[in-house]
């Protein structure tokens, strides 16, 4: 059985900027064929998982306010199933690193990440989480959260617009959709195992998002 294209109903496949990474991933997964039953179950479970991604509230600074805006009425990310934010890492699927990470915060962030249950994802929101942003070169700023955590999706911006945050979250959904759940994600992963290539969100298609707005 073959993995399918990661489809999101509200944005056509062609409108996503980064399809190659995912296609390469699919190819790699398809190398060893999947059992029909397990594959079908995978699809079902991944459909469920990707539409109920619960994030840990982890907003250290400005980007966090835009994250709050995404949660409020106008942007309303409940439409995609992201509306449940958890305050405990044990109940979260992903960690949205929204804001600058400093030397003092780094061990705390690492501990929160370690406390999360597998499968878990990391989304780096904003310039600070990606590379240190405007504060690159400061003595107390970690230049990018990927120095300490494996990142799945990067959303650039300072701060990223709410549309971009949603677009980034959809990219994560697509990534979740093509994963093998049984025999891979449901097992505990070796933390030293090399993580797959992250998706880099480049300028989100605004028209696409507007379509979903209506």
């Amino acid at each position: 059985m073959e993995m399918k294209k990661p489809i999101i109903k509200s944005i056509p496949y062609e409108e996503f900027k980064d399809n190659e990474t995912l296609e390469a991933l699919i190819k790699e997964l398809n190398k060893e064929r999947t059992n029909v039953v397990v594959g079908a179950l995978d699809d079902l479970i991944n459909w469920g998982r990707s539409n109920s991604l619960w994030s840990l509230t982890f907003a250290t600074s400005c980007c966090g306010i835009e994250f709050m805006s995404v949660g409020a009425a106008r942007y309303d990310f409940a439409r995609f199933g992201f509306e449940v934010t958890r305050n405990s890492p044990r109940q979260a699927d992903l960690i949205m690193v929204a804001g600058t990470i400093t030397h003092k915060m780094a061990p705390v962030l690492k501990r929160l990440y370690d406390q999360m249950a597998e499968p878990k994802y990391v989304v780096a929101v904003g310039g600070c989480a990606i590379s240190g942003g405007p504060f690159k070169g400061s003595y107390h700023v970690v230049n990018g959260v990927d120095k300490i955590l494996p990142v799945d999706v990067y959303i650039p911006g300072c701060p990223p617009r709410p549309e971009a945050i949603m677009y980034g979250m959809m990219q994560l959904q697509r990534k979740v959709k093509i994963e093998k759940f049984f025999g891979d994600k449901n097992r505990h992963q070796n933390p030293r195992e090399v993580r797959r290539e992250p998706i880099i969100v480049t300028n989100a298609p605004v028209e696409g998002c507007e379509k979903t707005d209506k």
Partner: protein
Amino acid sequence: MELIFIEKEEARKVLRTHRDSGMDFLRDLIGMDWGDEGLGVIYILENSTTHATMHLAVRTTDRNKPAIYTVCDMWSIAELYEREVYDFYGIRFIGHPDMRRLFLRNDWEGYPLRKDYDASEAINPIRLTNEPPEDVQRSYEIEEDKEFAAIAKRENFMHVDEYVINIGPQHPATHGVLRFRLALAGEEIRKIDIHCGYIHRGIEKLCESKTYPQLLAFTDRLDYLSAHQNRHALCMCIENALGLEIAPRVQYIRTIMDELQRIDSHLLMLSCAAMDLGALTAFIYGFRDREKVLDIFEEVTGGRLIQNYNIIGGVQADITTGWEAKVKDYCTYQLHKIKEFEDLFVNSIITKNRMKGVGVLTREEAISYGATGCTGRAAGWACDVRKRHPYALYGQVDFKEVLYTNGDSYDRVLMRLDEIKQSVHIIRQLIDNIPAGDFKQKTKPIIKLPEGRFSAAVEGSRGEFGVFIESHGDKSPYRVKFRPMGLPLVACMHKILKGCKIADLITIGATLDYVIPDIDR
């Protein structure tokens, strides 16, 4: 700005005389590294009734074991300010009860704001180990026949038989990454220990290596809910130093933008305060209105949260045609919607029960802690910079400085609603009369400030935001200090929280409305 140097030994006496003669508000306490001339501290004092200000400085030439006498018994806020100076410059304050680092990890090597600080990764790598707990308060005394201060007293902050709980740094109700350690007796808070620095980005040090136009970007990101006002303060400080005349059109636009930003911030505060009480609906309502302000911002500045709008000598872009009409529509809309907040949130019995008489800060305490903004005014202290030292157009427009007297959480919430109304009132006076003219002026490609010390202050969304620049005539500043609006608010929690129930910590924090990146800088 005139700086009077006083002798180290005399300092306490001189400062006390000034304090007793009415200089009861310590606006800022700035650590300095003057290279060969030594390390020192600048005190900016103000008389809370006459608003006369005064700048004093103390310095010490000993770089290895610098020590200066404390003033934290005269102004309560000095306790945290001095810890900050100790953290950044290594100056020990003799007689200070608790000389620990405030922002950096306690295993941090070196004092980062000193000019000879070595920032290499090898000395301070990213440590993924937990911070070793430091629970010992140290105070320094000068011993006889020794020139430098030695540790005189060590005392454990929390005792073994105390029930200690930890809130933060990742806790949704601290509104960011602040950490409290509380000692409890049942539900009552006995002691509170505040840990800052989880979002300390080293902005002041970064500023020293950037050119003046590059500095501007940092101010927006300090307190992102006062982005316009912060940047206004820095631009004003640089413009004053350069002697630039600002066009009336720019002044109008800046004043209107400042007030819109204030409305934006207060709406966010109201929604979050309601959310912290469990009223999620109010959060949705608040953000609905806030989006309208953001639309207005976006049309002119291109940014929603962080706008990068003010520049030296003007503003980035002109207002668009038809923008005034949108602002006016919004003003009408907002006044109408405030009713909703009043009916659903402020007048609700739950809010009243949770907030009335809770978290009281008196006027004297507010002054001593330097807690400006809505917190100070809820306690009856007329501390509005717009009235005290009018800037931009605030000297010409008519508005009321709202004052309450109880100083409790409920008054702090009411303050916000009244301030929104006053802001609308200010905007309405200005919006129809924006004069024609240039929205920016040409400045030199490389901006160099003349030698000297300059300062400026504006009324941010939650208090006085001040900028201090010392220039040695180069294209980047020698020292930049931002007066945080939030640090005094957090400092006064010491006072407010004692004896409160732990559940009230959340509402009190929400009504004080601090923004952590502004505290930590």
